[in-house]
């Protein structure tokens, strides 16, 4: 910062007639004096202050209305809301919402057959049974693959499975040893082993044509 010329300082302090100053200092003197007048003048009202003053002079009609009306106006008035989220929380929130939607509107039994598959319902009434399973051509007649459940203990055992569309022969195996054709199957075929035993016959409709 350059020091002010002593002559100019004296003129500003009123100790020297400004008319005695050289031309360049006289111009500087005039600028400084003008600036001083601006700073010492009464401050202009801010825009906000002027708006508030206008409002106070003209009370809003809403103030004269009932409280319910004012509440409704307050609720209906648009407001800017600033929400600051970290991206990681945003992603977590989206994942959570997606999970909830899937749980609410997804397939309830978790079975989604393909075009060449269908859903088979197995139901049997075996009161007192300890276990019931389905064994058939769809699982190579293997034990321990598809178990029926009786969660409420009413003797009605049931299971659902996605199976290839088409014909399947099957039987229930009760308590691991008793082979029983499904009494509700409606279709039966001799098992061909000469003892007159019948397999239940299931025809699975492809999901694509199920109504």
């Amino acid at each position, binding site marked *: 910062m350059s020091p002010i010329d002593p002559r100019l300082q004296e003129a500003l302090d009123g100790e020297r007639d400004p008319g005695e100053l050289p031309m360049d200092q006289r111009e500087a003197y005039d600028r400084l004096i003008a600036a001083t007048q601006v700073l010492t003048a009464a401050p202009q009202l801010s825009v906000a202050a002027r708006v508030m003053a206008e409002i106070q002079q003209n009370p809003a009609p809403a103030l004269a209305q009932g409280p319910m009306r004012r509440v409704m106006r307050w609720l209906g008035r648009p407001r800017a809301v600033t929400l600051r989220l970290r991206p990681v929380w945003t992603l977590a929130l989206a994942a959570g919402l997606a999970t909830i939607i899937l749980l609410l509107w997804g397939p309830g039994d978790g079975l989604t057959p393909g075009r060449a598959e269908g859903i088979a319902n197995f139901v049997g009434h075996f009161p007192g049974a300890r276990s019931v399973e389905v064994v058939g051509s769809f699982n190579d007649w293997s034990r321990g693959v598809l178990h029926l459940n009786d969660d409420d203990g009413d003797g009605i055992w049931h299971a659902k499975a996605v199976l290839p569309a088409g014909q399947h022969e099957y039987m229930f195996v009760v308590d691991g040893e008793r082979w029983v054709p499904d009494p509700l199957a409606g279709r039966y075929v001799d098992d061909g*082993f000469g*003892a007159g035993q019948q397999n239940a016959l299931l025809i699975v409709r492809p999901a694509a044509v199920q*109504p």
Partner: protein
Amino acid sequence: MMLRLALALALVAAPVASQTGGPRLAGRVPAAALPAIDSIIATAVAESLPTEPLVQKALEGSAKNVPADRLVNGVRRGLLQLRAARVIVARAVPGQSPPEGHVAAVSAALARGLPAPIVERLLTVAPNEPPGPALHAAADLIAHHFDPDSAADLLADAHTKGLRGVRLLDVAVAADHELQRGGGRTPSEALAHVRALLPNVPAPNRP
């Protein structure tokens, strides 16, 4: 999920092993029956017959602990049924090799007791479509004491009016419901009523 995985593995493995059935039968079929069953399956391969029904029959009998002699007889009976099925298919669909799956489907229908002439007639109606649903529909009707020829007539009409595949099963269900409705309705009257509905027979409820 585990069931689907197991089924998928079984389906993938089936075509690979079904030429002889050996890998799928070893350890499951009693040793006393295995050579005879292998021989039957080899015969089927030599005659270009499907082997999967024979493998399934062997696995089924083994799971049920059927004695070895009856197990072998059961599989042999399956081979005879496949041969009979191929003859029927060849008559109904002459001049071409049997479409895939036809012989096995016809064999299954014969096992259900469907008369050969009915099978042949239904094959003739739709020679290039999978015959399983029509054959099962006919077997369903006959099992419910409908006249076999009338049942085949109804299914042929249904096909003519545009019903295909498993929708033919709905025709049999509709006829059975009509018969059970009571009121002294005879089977032929029930069939006539369903024929008048065609092709608008009700579809079953989704499971």
